[in-house]
Every structure is written in C-alpha cells, then in structure tokens.
C-alpha cells in the first residue's frame, strides 16, 4: 500500500492515519518521493520544505500514538502558495524583491494548518504578488501544467494547482483576488474554492488588493476541499475584515444533492466571443446534468458583468499601488546598492526588485488614483462594483446559485499571451464578478475539451453560500465522476 499512497485523496489518507493503518511519516515520504519524481517536469515549488513536512508528520504520529484525537486532515500533505508567511521559511511572493525574505511570524492560515496537522511539503510557485493568470510572471520561472508541460497551469496560484493535479500533495492553498484559485483549478482539472471575503483570515497574507484578496483551498475531490476550507476558515481578531460569525458546517449537507435547487446559467459567461467551443459544450452538458439530477435550471442574463473586468483592472491596480508602496528597501526585502540618497535608493530598489507586470499595475494604479483622474477612473470603477453587486442580488431573487465556465479557454501555451497583458486579463472574465461582490464560488472539473485539456465548471453563490456551493459541486462530481488522471500519473487510476 505504502508505495502508492500519493494516489489517494486527503480524507482517505487521514482516515488511514487516524486508524493507524499507515503513519503520517509514511504518507509524507510517499509524497516527497513523488515530488522528486515529477517536480523537475512540473516546477510547482519555489521552495520545497521536506524537513518542515517531516517534522509536522512526526508530530502528528506522536500525538496519535498518545491517543489524541486530531482533525479530519491530520497527516495529509499540503502545498502552500508562497504568499503566506511561515515563521523561519523563505516567503518570496514570487518576487525578486522578497527573494531572501524570511518572515518572523506565521500567517493565521498557517497557524491553523499547523493545528490541523497538515504537513507543508513546499512553498508553491505563483505570479509575482499574485498578479497574473499563468505563473509566467514569477521571478522564479513558470510552472508547467501536468496535463501538458508545454502549457501554463493558470495563475496566479498555478504552483498549488499543479502540485495537487500532479499528486505531489492532495491539498493546496491558494489566494483568489480575481480568479487566482478558480482559473488554475479549471486549467489543471482540480477543485478550487474562492470563499466569501472575510471567511478566511488575511493576516500574514502578503497583500495585493486588500478589498478583494481571499485565501482558499485546492483538492482533487469536493469533500477534501470542504474539509480544508473548514480547517482554515473562521474569525481572526488580527484581521479587522474577518467575519465574526461562527463558520457553518460545510460537510454536514454535502451529500444532500441538488433536488429543487434553483440554478441560473449566466448566459454571458458560458459562450460567445472568446469562448472555446469545447468549454461551452462541457459547461452546457454540466448544466443539463444538474437539471437531470433534479435542479431547476434556467437561463439568466448578466449584462453588467461585461463591465466587471474593466472595473477590476482599475480597482485592483489602485489597491496594489498603495499596498506595494511598502517595498521601499528599508524594512524588509531587497535594497539596491550604492544609491546617493533615499529617494534614489527607493526608486532603484523597486525598479530592480519588481517584474514587468507588477510595475505595469503599480503604474496603472498610481495613474488611476492621481489628481484629475480619480473620479473618472477609480470612482467610476467603484460605482460599477455596486452595479455588479446589484446584478447578483437581482439574480439571487430567482436563483440559489449561478453557473458558468470558470475560464473561457483551456490551458494555453507558455509564452502565448506573455506579451499581451490585455489578452491575459481576459482569462479572468468569468471569475472577477465574484471577487467584486465579495461572494463565494467554486470550480469543479466537468470534462475535457476538444483539445483533451480539462474544463472547469464554475458555480457562484451569494456571500456565505459555501455549504450550498459545495453540496451542488459534490452532487455534480458524484454523478459525473472524476477526470482521467493526467499523463504524469502513469499507469493506474487515481
């Protein structure tokens, strides 16, 4: 059994560990061996952390031997996006400016993962400061899609998604500001959840756009994603935007099905210009499948969502330009050498430390917030944000959930969109409305397109609808089944 432990989903592994059929140490070793075998092809990690994982695993084994009852994921390996601080472990945010940064404290999510006993096998690759849709903006080079290593895994949390898809860990943590969990989940054929804004603490998360950033789970099954979200969710007094209410039970109703559930197909986010035919076909089939399972499925038009992308690419850069002002070469990170005065030091540090996409967004945000343009750009974008929220509210008078594609296309070739920022931004057209509304959404695999690559089905819900979203996604998964394993898995079913 031990040799193929890496093939198993998280809940199964945790059960075997709790029953002492296998040790957490054995589970971790199986995944570390798996990482050694496939990481050279996938490049999911910036910093592998095998010693941290081994120490956490032996702690889990010791506590189980002592008769302690641990959480439902104890001993299950996890890939952590390298934008969450881990005390004493290099945390880069995919940037040269934090290339040698070693945080002196744990993010709250990391503290919760330590309590849950999920050994962290590595800090996963990402687009620099989570700005991008492909991981090509990482200062450490792109990750590869396990389905086709000439293609991107999506982004920005592409390393975490690729690690889970390639079975280097059954669990991953990402962050989603405009789709950065859901889009890579779709492109890599795994499950990804963007929780309601404020459900998961942002303390110790390196900030990109603070009114949009949210941490969430990756897994290969809906149940595993639900268990991981339960482990990290909940109020944190260290994050003033954290929701104070207790977290709903996310697994109690997960098998309850979609009978009578009202699901609206968001017409503009399923097909049309820019949508790959195979994506539209799989998503339409998924809607039919949910209807066959007893959901009341109908079409809904959401024209305002067409403006969400434009609003997002003003709001997110504006917040980014403000948040990233802290990288001044004084308190942490890189400092350019030999500057005559402090302004020259600041300006050269930032020019040498940031990559192109980060510089573009800082410039865009600085411009949108500058005197004379604030009302025309940032002010209007915030008004559009209100209109997007109203459009959701109108739709939720008729429906419990909305359904769409997660990404308009399957995974694209590395380099294909690198020189055209606007084309890259269009990758996020289906995911951005949820971030603007602070709401919740999930991406679940719904088949392969005509090119043999995974397609993600997106289900969107109002704030704090996670239990309903997970229930609908699980109903779909239970009936549809799972994708075939990507070629990297070799022989044998997942």
């Amino acid at each position: 059994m031990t040799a193929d432990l890496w093939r198993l989903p998280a809940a199964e592994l945790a059960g075997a560990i709790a029953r002492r059929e296998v040790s957490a140490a054995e589970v971790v070793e199986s995944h570390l061996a798996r990482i050694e075998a496939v990481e050279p092809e996938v490049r999911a990690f910036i910093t592998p952390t095998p010693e941290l994982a081994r120490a956490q695993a032996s702690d889990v084994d010791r506590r189980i031997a002592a008769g302690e009852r641990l959480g439902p994921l104890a001993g299950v390996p996890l890939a952590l996006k390298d934008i969450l601080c881990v005390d004493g472990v290099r945390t880069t945010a995919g940037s040269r400016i934090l290339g040698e940064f070693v945080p002196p404290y744990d993010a709250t999510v990391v503290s919760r993962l330590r309590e849950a006993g999920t050994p962290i096998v590595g800090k996963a690759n990402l687009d620099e400061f989570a700005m991008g849709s492909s991981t090509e903006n990482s200062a450490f080079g792109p990750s590869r899609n396990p389905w086709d290593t000439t293609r991107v895994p999506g982004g920005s949390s592409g390393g975490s998604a690729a690690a889970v898809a390639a079975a280097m860990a059954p669990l991953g943590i990402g962050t989603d500001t405009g789709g950065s969990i859901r889009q890579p989940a779709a492109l890599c054929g795994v499950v990804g959840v963007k929780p309601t804004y404020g459900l998961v603490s942002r303390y110790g998360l390196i900030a990109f756009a603070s009114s949009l950033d949210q941490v969430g789970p990756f897994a290969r099954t809906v149940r595993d994603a639900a268990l991981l979200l339960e482990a990290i969710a909940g109020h944190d007094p260290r994050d003033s935007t954290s929701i104070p209410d207790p977290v709903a039970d996310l697994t109690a109703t997960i098998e309850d099905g979609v009978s009578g559930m009202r699901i609206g197909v968001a017409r503009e986010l399923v097909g049309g210009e820019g949508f790959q035919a195979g994506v539209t076909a799989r998503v339409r089939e998924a809607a039919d499948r949910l209807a066959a399972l007893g959901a009341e499925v109908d079409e809904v038009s959401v024209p305002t969502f067409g403006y969400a992308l434009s609003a997002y690419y003003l709001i997110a850069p504006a917040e980014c330009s403000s948040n990233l002002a802290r990288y001044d070469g004084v308190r942490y990170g890189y400092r350019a050498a030999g500057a005559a005065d402090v302004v020259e030091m600041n300006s050269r540090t930032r020019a040498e430390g940031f990559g192109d996409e980060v510089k573009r967004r800082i410039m865009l945000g600085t411009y949108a917030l500058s005197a004379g343009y604030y009302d025309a750009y940032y002010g209007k974008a915030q008004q559009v944000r209100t209109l997007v929220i109203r459009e959701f509210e109108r739709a939720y008078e008729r429906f419990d959930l909305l359904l769409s594609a997660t990404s308009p296309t399957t995974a694209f070739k590395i380099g294909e969109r690198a020189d055209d920022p606007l084309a890259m931004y269009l990758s996020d057209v289906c995911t951005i409305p949820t971030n603007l509304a602070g709401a919740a959404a999930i991406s679940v695999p719904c088949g392969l397109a005509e090119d043999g690559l995974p397609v993600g089905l997106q289900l969107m819900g109002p704030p704090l609808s996670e239990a309903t979203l997970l229930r609908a996604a699980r109903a779909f998964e239970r009936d549809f089944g799972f994708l075939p394993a990507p070629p990297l898995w070799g022989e044998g079913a997942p």
Partner: protein
Amino acid sequence: MALTREQVVHVARLARLALSEEELERFGRQLSGILEHAAQVTRLATEDVAPTSHAIPLVNVLRPDVPGECLAREKAISTAPEREQGRFKVPRIMEEPQ
C-alpha cells in the same frame, strides 16, 4: 486614450520606479491600451450609484485595549537589509550642511 511621455514619467516618479527609456516607452504603450479598455466603466450611466469600496461592510471593529504578545524588537527588524543599534538604517535623507 494615449498617455504622453510626460505623463508616464510623472507616474513613474510618483510610484518611485526608476524606469529605463525602453520601459517608459513600452509601459506607456501598454497602459494606453489597458486604459482604453478600462474606460468602458465610464460608459455605464452611474450618476446616482453609490460607490462600493468594500463588498462586505463591517463597522466599528473594536477590541479591548489590552497589550498582547508582540514580536521582540530584534526579531521584528531581522528582515531589514541594513540595521544598526536595533533600528532600520537608510541612506541620507537631508543634504549635508554647507
């Protein structure tokens, strides 16, 4: 809308980015394209619509004013590129006196 070179230089200075000539030209061109797309937001009639800065509003997040655990000074500044006597060290800010 196309940004002028002067505007790009001005924004780079505000953002404290020492950009090369090549970057000024390239970013200027790319930002013009992105802004043209972003300007779609101005096409929606939004005169009476209140702006949203935060989708999940919480007001008056308070806590008791009790000191808690915090990082020790040496640990807190351990990440700084240059430090001296328990403080961050920066290059000269003021001119030398004449």
